[in-house]
């Protein structure tokens, strides 16, 4: 048992802090989200040069070959600066899906390009009726003489408008909610039959609803019909990453709120001197620490057996979701009216936390998933 970061991990942390401190102050962020897409090519190149894009990609494929803990460290740092680059889409999902499900040839083809920042992926999995279930998939892929054609509708494909390729979860067999018969496909978004309805998300990023109408897939990723295992494993890892973003965002929000209540005066004194404000700050900090403990657990469990991995991911997602609500809502409340303006960072952290709470399954979903898994306390 050892809770220490390795030397590489400590260095990673330092380099993140250094780079973000220089390039990702709130005013820089504001300029970034005014663009379309709301992130920067240059930043992406920096990420690549620092090795962050290839963090879990094996060294043989041009990456650093690190693990989920390192991804968690990146998530926390990115969350604390509201980083908008498509890291979750392209790296946490994209590179890990190919790593987990792809053939050796596909890994060799795509992983180096992902690591060097020249190929960006987006992952199309959710559908209108799926809510948060990964295996509720109506989109289907028809086998043809020379490949597959895909038909169906996906919603909320994060970062799709700026992706080079889409990874699409589609059904090659079974009924809409079956756990088998699912496959992953690489699809070129410029292919005929792909209609992309792009929009802004509540946290000022980009996503799209996508209709696939007999779209020829570029490739089947890995083998047919057994994609769910890989998708679940990668999603649990993505949950750990997203929870880490939540932890980073909450920490930044609590720090900003504490700083504010120490200077904001009402009735002749700093509002931070009021005992109820002090205890509220404590409540938020307690939430942060609880979320931090659970996020670490989820990250460490990314390589555990499937049951432990799923329990840890779902428990963490519930905790972070609950905490995000408490921290986000109270940060605005403690700021009062000024917390309601888009000019301050507060509301933006709040909206990012809303996204963190909902993406990859909300509190209710993960509580039910957790309950469905075997437990020693049952």
């Amino acid at each position, binding site marked *: 048992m050892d809770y220490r970061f390795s030397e590489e991990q400590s260095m990673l942390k330092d380099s993140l802090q250094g780079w973000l401190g220089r390039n990702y102050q709130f005013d820089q962020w504001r300029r970034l989200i005014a663009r379309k897409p709301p992130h920067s090519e240059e930043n992406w190149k920096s990420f690549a040069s620092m090795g962050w894009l290839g963090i879990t990609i094996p060294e043989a494929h041009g990456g650093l070959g690190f693990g989920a803990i390192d991804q968690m460290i990146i998530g926390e740092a990115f969350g604390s600066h509201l980083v908008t680059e498509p890291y979750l889409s392209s790296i946490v999902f994209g590179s890990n899906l190919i790593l987990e499900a792809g053939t050796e040839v596909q890994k060799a083809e795509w992983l180096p390009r992902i690591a060097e920042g020249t190929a960006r992926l987006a992952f199309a999995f*959710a559908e*209108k*009726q*799926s*809510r*948060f*279930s990964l295996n*509720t998939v109506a989109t289907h892929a028809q086998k043809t003489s020379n490949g597959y054609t895909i038909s169906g509708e996906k*919603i*909320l494909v994060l970062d799709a408008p700026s992706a080079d390729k889409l990874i699409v979860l589609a059904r090659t067999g079974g009924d*809409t*909610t079956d756990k088998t018969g699912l496959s992953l496909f690489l699809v070129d978004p410029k292919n005929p039959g792909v209609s992309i*309805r792009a*929009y*802004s*998300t*509540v*946290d000022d990023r980009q*996503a799209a*609803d996508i209709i696939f109408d007999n779209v020829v897939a570029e490739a089947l990723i890995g083998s047919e019909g057994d994609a769910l295992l890989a998708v679940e494993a990668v999603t649990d890892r993505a949950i750990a990453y997203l929870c880490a973003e939540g932890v980073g965002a909450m920490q930044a929000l609590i720090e900003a709120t504490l700083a504010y209540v120490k200077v904001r*005066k*009402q*009735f002749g004194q700093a509002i931070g001197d009021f005992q*109820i404000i002090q205890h509220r700050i404590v409540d938020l900090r307690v939430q942060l620490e609880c979320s931090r403990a659970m996020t670490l657990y989820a990250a460490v469990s990314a390589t555990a057996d499937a049951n432990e991995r799923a329990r840890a991911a779902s428990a963490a997602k519930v905790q972070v979701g609950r905490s995000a609500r408490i921290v986000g*809502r109270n940060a*605005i*409340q403690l700021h*009062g*009216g000024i*917390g*309601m*303006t*888009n*000019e301050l960072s507060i*509301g*933006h952290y*709040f*909206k990012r936390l*809303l*996204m963190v709470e*909902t*993406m990859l399954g*909300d509190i*209710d979903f993960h509580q*039910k998933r957790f309950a469905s898994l075997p437990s020693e306390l049952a």
Partner: protein
Amino acid sequence: MDLALSAEDKAFRQEVRAFIRENLPADIADTARRMFHTHPEDMLRWTKILHQKGWSAPSWPKKYGGTGWSAVQRYIFDEEYCMADGPLPLMAGHGVTMVGPVIYTFGSDEQKARYLPRILTGDDYWCQGFSEPGSGSDLASLKTRAVVDGDEYIINGQKIWTSLAHNANMIFCLARTDTTVKPQQGISFLVFPVDTPGITIRPIISIDRGHSLNETFFENVRVPRSSLVGEEGKGWTYAKFLLGHERFTIAEIARSKRRLQRLRQIARETPVGQGTLLDDPSFQEKATAIEIDLVMLEQMGLRIAWEMDQGIDNMLSASILKLRGSQIIQAVTELSIEAMGYSGLAYESLQDGSMFSPSAPDIAQGKMEEFLFLRAATIYGGSTETQQNILAKMIYAGA
């Protein structure tokens, strides 16, 4: 003890329901469903319709062109109004609910004649200048000065959170006219046109990305001394009179009932696997908990309305109503976006200023904007913490 509505009140409900059904323009109701704030031109159109019926000022005495309704009738009206998706704010700006009562209670005959009719017709659109950057809950610390200069006041200072000031042509505000007395005593209540030279309005974009809030700057703004309502130095008293009144309204009992109805409709139209979200026991439980809270809020509200009609001023209950009402507003708007799941995260600005989520059902459009904007429900009108301070004082004193 008899809590049933009288036959008259029941007939009144039918009358209101019929009138709104026949006269509320469908496009206005539609916009009201999708957008938190109604366009000023729609508001004017709707106010004219209500005015024609004599209903544009539900809370005013008949004498001043109001309806003369009892508080219970007003509650009934509000319920029918909200269930039909009548636009918010009820009337143009803060004229009917805020400045009107101050003018007819404390104003001069000349002020009454000049301002009240144009509030009733909707031709004057009023905004409110109370809060300042340094004084939110601590209103008495406001710094905007109004100095007498001959027949005029010269006003300097800054207001914040001036809702819809960019739509308004008139403003009422609090300014300090005497710095030698206790903070509460040197404040006066002034009314004047928004286009008076020296006034600058700067938009504040709120976290819902909408523009309803503003900062208002006064730089040597000269207004005639007739802009003073009531007595000089009594502005604090008038403001408290207003804010007390407001607590009932901003608990939004009827509107939250409508929100709950819509929430269940969203769940009904939200597919989950083979069924819908409405079938989910956890969702049901959360919606039921809110409905029970609303039953409570309504029971409390009806009693306060009846007490108002009896001339009983129950400050404790009014404060509790605001406190609980705002919590319930947030519970139901929160559960609404929870119900939307992924579809609620799409948040696109349309031409008309509304926000749109492509994969969400019609009934859910506007819900994210509402959720975001109403984070302020526990801040405005005396924050939750302020209500708790007020309540503590009353309870410790034996209330």
